Every structure is written in structure tokens, then in C-alpha cells.
């Protein structure tokens, strides 16, 4: 009883402190709005707006029809350039694709001779090179087929019915927003708790608390519940207003289950934040420590690139981070409408990692008690 009371009152104090911390409040607002909205809205990982140029040496009705069929949203309006301009334009990154339609192309093809179209691709544009070629292939093939009204044969021998599940139209904003959302939760949990601890150490109030009849565990739990609660509320708001309204992304998974997962995750990452708060001796040091850890969590947790694509050592290492399991959990719940029977494994792992982080941080907190900062 006494234990819970102390945690409750201390937690309320944390929330009051946070309310006065302008830098953190700004960071939080910014993170939950701009940090989610801008990348989701503006970063197309999908094939959009590819810059394309055409060298038309054939200059026939067919060749013109071919390149006018490359349409938005996949391609920008093709520019007509000369053969000798290809190199310079591509080196400067002005065009990602250049189509070379040779002279006598339409003549050859109508005579049934072999006719080649060359596609120059800037293969440093990783997000477009392969997919773009694929689109060009499809579009041109079907245009040529239509133009000659070919009797399509082998094409029909086996039909392919491709259905994309969970995100039928492959909107990359769905993926980006949720990915950023997960990153923001982790980042803020670490910064808020870490900064809350450093602030108390810098002001000397932590010593004050430890002179009172309070245990380090109570102090830690108070920070965890209060900062966790603030983040959960802010994230729900952001989920509703930014992801739901501003980006109009349908949220189809079970929100209740997602909240349970988020709370477990917050337990783990706020503990990590406290751990960093005991390692760093000042706010700037916390900032410098925080950066590499957050980048690792954001980049290697499987949100951007699946774990399977990484070297084995990194795959094993990343299992230790709660973010890896949370990425797995949230993409299953939010995208694939998974229920508890599917995600219980990752949920449990998050909680176990959380307990380990908590115990380690508690040890550190006890040790750093009284160490002089100023």
C-alpha cells in the first residue's frame, strides 16, 4: 500500500515536471506529428514520379506511342534527349531511366525481326531500379502487343492472379507512418526518462528523494509509469489524429491489443532510458549516448529491412533489443490484423526483456546514488 502510494505521488510529480520542460514538450510534439507525417507523406519508397528520358531514333508512330504510355503516377512526363546526352544526364542524377528506341524499330518489329529497346537504368537509385524496369517491361510489351493487335498466345496458357494482402494498393505511407510511429515511441521513452533522471541528478533532488524513506525501485517505477502514460496517451492521439485523420490511413488491427503491447514495450524502453540516465553525467552526454542506440533501434529492428537480410551476428544481437520484437508485434497487429494467438510470443519476449532491463537499471541506480555530479 505504502509502496503504491509513494509511486503514485512521485509519478504525479514527474508529470508536473514534464509539463514545465519546454524542450521536451516541443520534442514530443514534433516527434509525434512532423516526424511521422513528413516521412510518411513525402518519402515514396514506392515507385512514383520516376524521372525518365527517351532517345527516339525511330521517330515512328509506334515509338511515340510507347513513350507517351509511360504515365504518372509511376513516371514523370518523359523528356526527349539526344544519344550523346545520356551519359552526362545520368551521371548528374537528372534521369533515373533512359529509353533508347533504335532507328527502324517499328519496321523491324512489324517484319517479325528482332527489335531491341535498351533501357539505361541508374542502378544507384535502389528504390526504383528494379521495380521501374519491371513497369517499363510490362507497359512496353502490352503497348506493342496492342499496337499490332497480336494474337496473344503463350501469355494465356497459365494466368497469374496476384493479390496483395493487408495493404492492397501498396501505399508506402501506411508502412512509413507505422514504422516512424514505432521509432518515435522508443526514442521518446528513452529521452524522457533519461532526461528526467539526469535533471534530478543535476538539481540534486534525487539525493533528496534517497534521504527520504523511499527505495530506488519506487523512484524508478514512478518514472516508468508517469512517462509511460504520457507517451501512451500522446501516441494514441497521434495514431488517431496524424495517422488516422491527417494521413487517412485505416487502422484495422485490434487497438486494445496494440495498447497492451505498447505498454509492455514502454516498460522495457523506459528502463533502458533510466539505465542511460545513470551512465551519462550530464544532458549533453545523454544526448550523445542516446543517438547511436536510437539509430540502432530504428534501423536494425526489422522495420526498414527484414532481419533475414542482415548478417547473422546482427540478427542475433538484435534479438536482445525490445524494439525488434515490438516491430514484429506491431506490424502483425496493425497490418495483418493478428490476434493474441499469433503474437503472444513476441509480447512475452518484450516483457521478459523489460524485466531484465529493469533489474539492471535498478542495480545501476543504486550504485550511482550520491555520486557527485557538479
Amino acid at each position, binding site marked *: 500500500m505504502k509502496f503504491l502510494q*509513494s509511486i503514485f505521488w*512521485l509519478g504525479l510529480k514527474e508529470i508536473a*515536471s514534464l509539463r*514545465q*520542460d519546454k*524542450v521536451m514538450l516541443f*520534442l514530443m510534439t*514534433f516527434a509525434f506529428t512532423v516526424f511521422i507525417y*513528413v*516521412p510518411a507523406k*513525402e*518519402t*515514396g*519508397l514506392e*515507385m512514383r*514520379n*520516376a*524521372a525518365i528520358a527517351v532517345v527516339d531514333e525511330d521517330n515512328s508512330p509506334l515509338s511515340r506511342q510507347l513513350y507517351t504510355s509511360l504515365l504518372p503516377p509511376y513516371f514523370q512526363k518523359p523528356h526527349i534527349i539526344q544519344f550523346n546526352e545520356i551519359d*552526362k544526364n545520368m*551521371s*548528374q*542524377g537528372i534521369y533515373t531511366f533512359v529509353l533508347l528506341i533504335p532507328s527502324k524499330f517499328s519496321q523491324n*518489329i512489324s517484319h*517479325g525481326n528482332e527489335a531491341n529497346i*535498351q*533501357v*539505361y*537504368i*541508374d*542502378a*544507384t537509385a535502389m528504390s*526504383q531500379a528494379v521495380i521501374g524496369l519491371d513497369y517499363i517491361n510490362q507497359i*512496353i*510489351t502490352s503497348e506493342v502487343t496492342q499496337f499490332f493487335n*497480336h494474337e496473344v498466345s*503463350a501469355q*494465356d*496458357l497459365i*494466368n*497469374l*492472379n*496476384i493479390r496483395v494482402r493487408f495493404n492492397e494498393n501498396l*501505399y508506402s505511407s501506411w508502412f512509413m507512418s507505422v514504422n516512424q510511429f514505432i521509432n518515435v515511441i522508443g526514442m521518446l521513452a528513452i529521452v524522457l526518462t533519461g*532526461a528526467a533522471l539526469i535533471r534530478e541528478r543535476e*538539481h540534486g*533532488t534525487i*539525493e*533528496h528523494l534517497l*534521504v*527520504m524513506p*523511499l527505495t530506488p525501485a519506487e523512484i524508478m517505477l514512478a518514472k516508468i509509469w508517469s512517462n509511460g502514460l504520457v507517451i501512451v496517451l500522446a501516441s494514441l492521439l497521434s495514431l488517431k489524429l496524424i495517422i488516422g485523420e491527417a494521413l487517412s490511413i485505416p487502422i484495422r488491427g485490434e487497438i486494445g491489443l496494440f495498447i497492451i503491447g505498447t505498454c509492455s514495450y514502454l516498460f522495457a524502453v523506459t528502463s533502458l532510458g533510466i539505465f542511460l540516465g545513470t551512465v551519462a553525467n*550530464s544532458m*549533453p552526454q545523454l*544526448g*550523445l549516448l542516446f543517438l547511436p542506440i536510437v539509430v540502432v533501434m530504428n*534501423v536494425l529492428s526489422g522495420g526498414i*529491412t527484414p532481419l533475414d537480410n542482415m548478417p547473422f551476428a546482427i540478427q542475433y544481437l538484435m534479438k536482445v533489443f525490445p524494439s525488434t520484437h515490438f516491430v514484429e508485434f506491431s506490424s*502483425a497487429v496493425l*497490418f495483418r*490484423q493478428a490476434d493474441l494467438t499469433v503474437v503472444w510470443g513476441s509480447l512475452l519476449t518484450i516483457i521478459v526483456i523489460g524485466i531484465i532491463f529493469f533489474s539492471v537499471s535498478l542495480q545501476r541506480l543504486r550504485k550511482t546514488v550520491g555520486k557527485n555530479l557538479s
Partner: protein
Amino acid sequence: MDKPDEVVSVTQVTHHYKQQLALADISLSIEKGSIAGLIGPDGVGKSTLLSLIAGVKKIQHGEVHLFSQNIKLNHVRNQLCHRIAYMPQGLGKNLYATLSVYENLRFFSQLFGQNHQQRRQHIEELLAATGLAPFAKRPAGKLSGGMKQKLGLCCALIHDPDLLILDEPTTGVDPLSRLQFWELIKRIKARTPDMTILVATAYMEEAERYDSLAALYNGKILATGSPKALCQQTLTKNLDEAFKALQPEHTQQANLSIPPYQQNSKPVAIEASQLTKRFGDFTAVDQVNFRIYQGEIFGFLGSNGCGKTTTMKMLTGLLPPTEGKATLFGEPMNSRSLSHRKNIGFMSQNFSLYQELTVKQNLLLHARLFQLSHDETNRRIHELLSRMSLANVADELTVDLPLGIKQRLSLAVAIIHRPKILILDEPTSGVDPIARDQFWQLLAELSRKENVTIFISTHFMNEAERCDRISLMHAGKVLAAGTTEKLVSEKQASNLEAAFIQYLQESEQTEADQKTQLSISSRDTDSKQSPPTLKKHSQASLLSWQRLWAYAQRETMEIQRDPIRFLFALLGPIFLLVVMGYGISMDVNHMKYAVLDHDQTQYSRHYLEAFEGSKYFQQQLVVGNNQQAEHALTKGEIELVIEIPPQFGRQILKKESPEVGIWIDGAMPFRAETIRGYVQGVHQNYLQQLSKTSARQTYHQLKIEPRFRYNQSIESIYAIVPGVMATLLTFIPAMLMAVAVVREKELGSITNYYATPTTRLEFLWGKQLPYISLSFINFISLFLVTWLFFGVPVKGSFWLLVIGSGLYVVATTALGLLISTFTTTQVAALFGTLIITIIPSINFSGLISPVASLSGGASVMSTYFPAAYYLNITVGVFTKAATWADLKPNFLAIIGFFIVFTLLSALFLPKQEH
């Protein structure tokens, strides 16, 4: 008003901080060659007035003339910098803690344009005169308070100023060092009688030695005149009383009286025996013994950093002692014992209150944490609010309160649970004498009426005299203990201060400090010779390479001596490149799929073999029904399902065009899109093979030949790793740089930029230079990691990359400088830089999607941020074999960014504080 002998003339100066009035219509004049003092407690406007006179702060209203010249004019102020020295408040605030004594002096000497020979001679003289010579190599941060102040004085005197402005130079310093400090000033004054000295102080005893005084209170001058005149005017014996008498009547109070302590065989409340604390090889507290009886007021008297705080922390259980033990009421101190803590009330040096809570909330929080019952809580809060005169501020935020009130609140919080022992660590520092008396009245009541044992530390003599017994502490040791009378009579001194000085001298004699004494006395004989004169460089030039170099040199040493920053700066980028190089991969292979074969004939197996044979696909499992397939897909075990319909084989034979179903997980759209492409490719291929074998050649001969340029194998690392390199060289230099300037603002050493003839560009470029070099080292290490570790070959010109990178880190450090000119805290600078740089450098630099495809806001962000241009250079040189002709526009853009950033920084970095 132009008098020939007038050095400082202040006319009707008024200054506000936001709404708050700091100085109201002050006029003051100081004669050449005099020692003038500003007296008054903290927060009355002394520091504001001094910084206005020194030209460090911008004058809001009124005028200040120095040497009959108006310092409101910028060119006048720049010239006068050479004739003024300013030493701000706070122990060693304008010193650089990680630099040695000599390095600090060298830095200041360089700022004033002294040549090598002048400098050595002058520094040696100053070090000898102050007795710092034996410590020339010690970092300033490790000096004692007294030595720091001497070093501060040396730095101020390095350019032989005509006007020396000292802001509370001796606050918090032990009495012996204080004495030595003033003797030093006296000697310097004897050498250069024309030098005028303006001092602010809260020690009234010191002020008695000055030629003229101005007593300040609440931003107004109460009285001016010589110390004698002030005493006569108020009919008092000394300045302390004179000052009290000068104040408006409502603040005056009956004199403090503390009834004598009755020992009456009371039990021992606190006992320390052989208490010792070591931090590494530094002994903070050395075998301290004392015994404090219940209800006694026991004082610890000593300078800053002598071990008072550490001793107190051991008694509260915050720090475990290295050796020895402490007992409370006969029980050994146990840091984990919660019941012990209920007996202790603790008030620390910086009033550990929650600034973000109101007065009442602070009390309430502590009452709750001590588990007072509901009724008791209300009663105690009510009682304490009235007793500590806090009722009228009960609902105000603590952060806005004056020090005196914070102090009373802090005491209220410490005693809310009625502790038997009260431990107070310098509770009255920075509070004016009247508030201090009120505070002592409260302590006296607690001790005498409620029998609370009070253990208090202080560096004020007159406060120590009020204690029942005191302990004199110095350098971790207790020199003597007993009642004031006993200590004074033992040394046959006139007062406690004199006695303390004798104790200090005794202890110092025994240590190896004779060398210092010697050098001081030898200096005395020298001083009769004519003082060395220095040629003054009074013309202020726009850019002095010497000063610029001084800043660069100093910054370099500081970075080298801060391990966390240094390690982050060197290893951070390498670590991040490796992480991101592996992490951001757009290669799509090893796609795990499940097979749902309803047909199970040779035809279906033949079709599926086409997928098995592809290097992109990796069969994970074979499922029997739709649910299983669905489950595996939901769980994320596989990314696609290939479903062969029943009758597949038969339909092929009958040419009925069977339909193969492909389900793709769309959670990662980029991968899904690529998977779709690959599936179609495999399918097409299969059909072509089939049609060739069946020899039905009716299809036209269209062939689309892809020419993958620059990266034939289409592997992510060739594009991503050089791209990440560009991203890292954007935000890491900017972050390191941004912190560097704000640090000076936070620590206070930015004053040296305000008070010396440093120009904006000297300061900006001097600080930038080390970070440019550091970032260039980063570039080289990133280059090596990219080339050797990731195996990305350099196809273009290496030197083009080197030049481009050099220019680029110049531009990104300039961006950091710009950010740090308008932020005020290190945290804000760090996160501000992160926010400003991270989205444009990752999302809109071309790292993820090509810049040519961006539109709208993204395109704007990419155009007006330098990252995209540099990414063109790194990817261009590494992978595209781009030439100067290809990359020229990018180089020009980067140079343009550098110019714009620097101009803006210079615009936003004021030469004066506001």
C-alpha cells in the same frame, strides 16, 4: 560632467530582465586609481551593473562613460577592451576547467595579441607573484577555490588593464586565501598606482578596506561614500550593521538572539569516528571525528570543496564511507534503513526543491512521501506555511521565487516530518543578511524548543559564530573543533576569522607549501623595480589570425580532454556507418514463401520448380490448406504464398488457362512491389520456356534489354553506403559544433568573447576549425570503412571526393554554428540539430528515393538543404565515376551554403549579452 580623474561614469542607468527591474536609475562615478566597491547581498543588481560597465551586457537605458568615452558606441567599446579587464562572478567561471593554469593564461594572452616573448615573461611574472608557479601544469578545474580566483586574477591582469572589474572575487573562498588575494591586489596596486579597481562583494569586512563604496539594494543605490562616512552616517560601528541600518525600515528586525545551549547530559545524536571518503586517489574527507549532542547546533566551517558536503552525504547515508563509521543515536548508519531516514531532515546546497511545482505542492509531495496521515498533512502544511511566512506565495511556482523564500521553503520541506536531526548544507549561501537572520531565528526555535539536533555547514564567519560548537575544516581535514570562544582564545586571536587563518597557516606550514611562500616574498623585492610595460595593440582589426588560432587551439585541447565527446566524435560515425550500411538494404532476396498445391501433379511441381530455381526465392514450408497459409502470412513467417488450383495439370493440357494464385504480404510495400515484379518475371520465363518447347512461335520479337549502369549487380551497398556516409557527415559535424558554442553559454566562459577584443569571425572560425579537422578525420575513417570493410571501390577521382568532403564538412559545421547561435542550452542545441538535420539528410537527400523523383515539400527541403548535393558527390565519385564537369554545380551549391550559414551566424551572434 567630464572630470579628468573620472574613470567610470554611470549616468541614469536602468535595466530590466523581461518584466523584472534589475537596476533603477543608477548614477555613479569612480575616480582614477581608487578601489571602489559595490556592496549589497546577492540579487540586488551588483553583477548587472558591473557587466554593463565592462561592456559585456548591452545597455538598455542611460549611459556609461569609461575614460570619458561613451561605450555605447561599438568602435569605442572595441578599442577600450584593451584597457579593461573583467572577472565575472562564480569560482573560475571564465576559466577553462580542463586547461592547465599555463594554458589558460596563454589563451588570454593570445587574445590580447601579445607576442611569444612578451607572453612568457609576463605569465612567469604573474605566476610568481600569485604563487601559482608550482601549479602551472595543473588543470584549472582541479585547483582549490582560492587558487582559481588567483588564476582568474592573473588572466584579468595579463594585458595590464587600466580598469579592473572584479565581481565577488572572494565568495566561497577560505579566509587565508581571501587574505592572500587582497594582499596580492595591494601589491599590484602599489606597482601600478594608476590602475582603478571596481569590486562587488557581499563580505562587509572586506569592503572596509576600499576607498569608496556604493551600497546597492533592490536595484537602487542606498548610499555612497567612504566606509568611514557610511558608518558615521548610520551611527554604527561596522559596515555590516551600517548596511542593515541603511535599509528601508520594514525589512529591519529585532536582533537575533539564540538562548545558550544546555548540555545536561543529553544523548549523543550523531557521532563520526575516523570517517574517510576517497574518490579514486583523491581523499575528500580524511579521518574526521566529531560528536554532536541532541538539540545542539553544530557548525562546519570551511571553504568550497573542503569536504563539508561529502561528510554530510555520508551522514545521510547517500555515500558509503571508505573507512570509519557514523552512528545516529548510537545505531550505525545504514543507507538502506528506511526508519533512519525518517529521523533525518536534509537540506542541500542548491535547495533541492522541485522548481516545477508550487510551494504548496512541494510541501504536499514531501508530506505524502513521508506517509503523514491526511489530517497531519493538512495540519503540518498549514502550520509551516504560516511559521515560515510562506502563506502568501503558497500557490506560486517555486522557480520564480527569490532565494530567501526558496530557502525557507526548503527548510519547511526538510522538517515536515518532524525529524530529530536536521542536516543543512550551506543553507544560507547567496541570501542577504536580513533573510539570513530570519532563517537563523527559525533554526534557533527548532533547536531550543523542539530539541532538534542541527548540523549546519557554512563559509560565513558570522554564521559560524552563532553555532553552539564549530569544526574548522580544510582540505578534507578537521583543523580544530569547539566553541567559538575556545577556538579564538586558543589562538589568542581577535576574532574567529583571524583564528581560522592561524589554524590554516599552521596546517599549510606542515604541508609542502613553503615554496609558494618563498616565491611570494621574492616577488615582493622585485616589485620595487619598474613594472614591465607592454606595447598595446589598441587598433581593433577585423580578423586577427593569432586570436583565431588561440580559440582553435583551446577548443582542440578541450575536445581531447573530454573522453565522451572525443570518443563519440571519433568512433560514432564509424559505428553508425556500419549499422546503417547493413540496416538500410533494398536488396530483396531470400523471399520466404509457402506452397499451397491443390493439384499435386507433375505439371504443378514443374511450375513450382521455376520458383525453387530462382535465387530470389526460398521455399519455407508446404501448407495443406488456406488457413495454414493465412496464419503463416499473418505471423510474418513467409512473405508470399503460391497457390496452385486443383485440376491445374488437366487445365493446361486442355488449354483452359488455369489461374495460379499469388498472395503477397503488403506490409512492406517496397518489398511487396519487388516481389510482384520477380514473381511475374519467373512466371514469364516459365511461359517462354514452355512456348519454346512447344514451338508455337507466334510472339513478336520484342526484346527489352536493361543496361544497369554504375552498379551492374544492383547491390544496395554500392549506393547506400556512400549515401549513408553523406548523411553522417551532415548531422554529426553539425551536432558536435552546435554543442560547442552553447556549452560556453551555459558554463559562462562566453564572457571572454564579450569582454575581449575578439571579433565575431575570429570566434566563429576559431571554434569551427578544430571541428572541421575532426570531421575531416571522420571523412577519412568513413572512407576507409566504405572502401575496405564494405568493399565499395572508388570508380571516380579520389581527390574530387576529398575536396568535396572538405568543403562539405566546412558547410555542415557552419550549420552547427548557426544553430548554436540561437539556442541557449546544450540539450536544445543537440535535439534542435537532430530535428533540423535528420529528416532532410535521410529522407530527402536521395538516399532513399532519387531527388529527381521528389515533389512538393520534399523537393523544397531537398533543394534548400546541403545533403543532397554532397550525396551526389559521394555516390557520384564512388559508384558513378563522375567527373568534375558532372559534379561542378554540387560544389558551387555547397560553397554557397557555407557562405549563407556563416553570414547568418555572424548576424545572430551578438558581441554583447542582452
